[in-house]
């Protein structure tokens, strides 16, 4: 996509009008929606006054879908069609899930995207679609409560979510008809809510143990700036795993094996209740009747529970040490530890974290709500509602991004904990004489071997002029935006041949799928949508014209006469089309102008991205 400069900002903002925006905490166990009203961030309750929506979706039949507590009631009786903890499956393939027998679902693999789907009475459902149902419910709640349409939402994700998981979350939000203002890291959201509320200054650690994910973020807070120094975590570790330990113990105690799905669900529900009981009691009794009439009756003590879950706790301490090392800080440098996520209520978690940091963790905020509250504050800012205090958020990417080089090795292009947005360029060359194509494999992770990293995308740069091996100069540019999402462009520097990709084909939905699903769901059927779309497009077209004209003025010297003529022709065409009042014609003209300026934008971008690695060895990349 063309990157251009524009001259007149602020055109699309209606002045002095409060724009409705929400923050959504899309959790593994529970989800919440919050908004800023009269300058105060508030969680929006449902009609019964409940803040938390259980993240559970039940497909009753082909048409009827229940979400939240209504879905939860069917959990034990209808386990295959009642999906909980779907967040664990976002952007994941079957191989990522490990032993699937511990989940009471029927998994299948989508042949196009290689992601998991769940077989239900309403057909195969992707985790993106299931999550979209939860988001739709929250969107409806917010619109009823606020009395108007939302301009957008900030959706939170675990800081340690990789590109595929982030992309899947964004797709779910779009499918729910939400305009995603930003994907915000959960610990960062908590830090915003806590920091602004307490005027906190100094270094803070946010320990976020949710239902299915664990994050640790180290931030420096000073004069309204929230700077994430390092983040680490485990996107497959959470309160659910503590339930699993109790569940396994129950199986062992009662010599059970290979239970039907409904019994698995029943015992998991009891395990969860037992875990919560043990937060305040020394022991708890678990009684249940299985589908074949067998009766379970076991007593679990706090000590036993702590012993069986100790290694889960230890697994959270390793990321803690790593995050501190990455931030180049010692334990003594940390001024406060903020606890987030329902699972941090467990006394053994608070004790272990307190011992690690040698200080009592801060628990003067609701660990279930703080993420949504922070997201709402961010949403309010992004929607253009300016408050009295100015503040800035500087976040990082959690995992290194790189490319496959010879011998199946990963070469890091952007290291983890780089402040976003960021861009880096790296040069490669051809491996054989006359090589005219090169495959580019984008990966994410810290390990040296490609096979140990997550594959994000593969694409090809074709049409490289035939040259001797090593003569071509292929520059690969990585751009990470403020959502932490990556796009990659490759360009042969001598000929200008290029290929660009938004990294998403390995996982997630393609745009066409989303468009189709949106149409099917019928929520864009409003009559005024067309008129509004045209207006917005006209505004954007005008800005594009300004931007291109301005860019030509500033950097026109980068172009040859032919290139300049091509851009000017499309520019004039777009100006003509502006009078036509037809979205399709206008869109085509804009796309044509954008396409015509891709090389130009790339040239301008190249100029601005000073490659820290220039002069570095040109590695070979096999085709």
């Amino acid at each position: 996509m063309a990157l251009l400069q524009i001259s007149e900002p602020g055109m699309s903002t209606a002045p002095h009008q409060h724009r409705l925006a929400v923050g959504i905490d899309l959790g593994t166990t529970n989800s919440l929606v919050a908004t800023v009203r009269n300058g105060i961030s508030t969680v929006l309750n449902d009609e019964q006054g409940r803040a938390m929506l259980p993240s559970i979706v039940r497909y009753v039949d082909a048409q009827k879908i229940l979400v939240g507590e209504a879905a939860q009631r069917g959990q034990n009786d209808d386990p295959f069609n009642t999906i909980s903890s779907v967040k664990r499956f976002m952007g994941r393939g079957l191989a990522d899930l490990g032993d699937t027998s511990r989940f009471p679902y029927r998994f299948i693999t989508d042949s196009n995207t290689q992601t998991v789907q769940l077989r239900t009475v309403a057909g195969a459902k992707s985790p993106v679609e299931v999550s979209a149902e939860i988001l739709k419910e929250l969107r409806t709640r917010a619109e009823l409560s606020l009395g108007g349409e939302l301009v957008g939402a900030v959706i939170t994700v675990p800081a340690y979510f990789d590109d595929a998981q982030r992309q899947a979350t964004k797709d779910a939000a779009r499918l729910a008809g939400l305009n995603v203002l930003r994907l915000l890291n959960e610990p960062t959201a908590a830090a915003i809510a806590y920091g602004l509320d307490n005027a906190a200054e100094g270094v803070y650690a946010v320990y976020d143990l949710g239902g299915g994910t664990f994050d640790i973020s180290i931030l420096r807070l000073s004069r309204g700036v929230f700077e994430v120094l390092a983040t680490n975590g485990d996107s497959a570790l959470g309160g659910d795993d503590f339930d699993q330990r109790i569940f396994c113990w129950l199986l062992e105690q009662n010599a059970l094996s290979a239970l039907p799905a409904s019994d698995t669900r029943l015992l998991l529900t009891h395990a969860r209740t037992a875990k919560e009981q043990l937060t305040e009691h020394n022991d708890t009794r678990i009684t249940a009747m299985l589908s074949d009439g067998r009766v379970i009756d076991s007593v679990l003590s706090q000590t036993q529970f702590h012993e069986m879950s100790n290694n889960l706790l230890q697994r959270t301490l390793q990321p803690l040490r790593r995050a501190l090392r990455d931030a180049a800080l010692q334990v003594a440098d940390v001024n406060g530890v903020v606890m987030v996520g329902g699972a941090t209520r467990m006394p053994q978690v608070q004790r272990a974290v307190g011992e690690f940091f040698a200080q009592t963790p801060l628990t003067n905020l609701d660990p279930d709500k703080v993420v949504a509250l922070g997201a709402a504050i961010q949403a309010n800012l992004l929607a253009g509602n300016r408050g009295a205090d100015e503040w800035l958020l500087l976040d990082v990417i959690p995992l290194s991004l790189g490319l496959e080089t010879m011998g199946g090795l990963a070469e890091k292009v952007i290291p983890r904990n780089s402040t976003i947005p960021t861009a880096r360029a790296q040069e490669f060359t051809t491996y054989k004489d006359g090589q005219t194509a090169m495959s580019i494999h984008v990966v994410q992770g810290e390990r040296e071997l490609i096979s140990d990293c997550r594959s994000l995308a593969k694409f090809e740069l074709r049409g490289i002029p035939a040259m001797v091996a090593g003569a071509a100069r292929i520059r690969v540019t990585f751009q990470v935006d403020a959502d932490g999402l990556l796009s990659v462009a490759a360009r042969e520097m001598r000929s200008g041949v290029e290929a660009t990709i938004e990294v998403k084909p390995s996982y997630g939905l393609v745009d066409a799928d989303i468009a189709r699903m949106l149409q099917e769901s019928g929520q864009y059927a409003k009559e005024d949508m067309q008129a509004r779309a045209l207006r917005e497009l006209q505004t954007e077209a005008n800005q594009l014209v300004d931007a291109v004209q301005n860019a030509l003025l500033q950097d026109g010297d980068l172009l040859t006469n032919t290139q300049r003529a091509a851009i000017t022709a499309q520019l004039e065409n777009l100006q003509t089309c502006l009078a036509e009042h037809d979205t399709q014609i206008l869109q085509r003209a804009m796309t044509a102008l954008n396409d015509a300026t891709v090389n130009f934008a790339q040239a301008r971008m190249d100029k601005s991205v000073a490659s820290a690695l220039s002069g570095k060895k040109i590695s070979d990349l096999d085709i």
Partner: protein
Amino acid sequence: MSSINIDFKQSFFQLFDLQPSFALDGATLEQRYRALQLQVHPDQAAHLAAAQQRLALQQATFVNEAYQTLRSPLRRARYLLKLNDVDTQEETNTAMPLDFLMAQMDRREAVIAAQQQRDVAALDELTRLMQLETRELEADVAAKIDGEKNYLAAAELVRKLRFMEKLAEEIHAAYDEIDN
């Protein structure tokens, strides 16, 4: 508001209104970086049209790159030499003094040994030595660039600093391995 237009042709020093020297006031750099990001960060443009969001992305990326370059002594030195048309030849010029190379090899072996023996105290000591030596090299770089304007001599020091950076990365990885 993202109403400012950043000139991508200017140097990173010009961007932050700083003198192009190796000696640098970190507090001033940080303060100006934050002031700039408050104006250009994509969060300030999220409610605007797509073209303006792209501009914010581009400008914030440029400001981040500039800040990260100037903040790191090694990257700052490399950048200053580039501004003076001196290539540091970090991958091509391997003509390092023999005693320096020998010392580096000893250090690497010590890191591997410490990792194998899971000896955190030894890694701590190696870290201390590495930091000490890095600071000495940085002081030398300052003298060569800011004082003598001897950029070729500075380039050799930058190549040495790159060795120190790699050593630091290896120590870091060794800590992580011991943790596993």
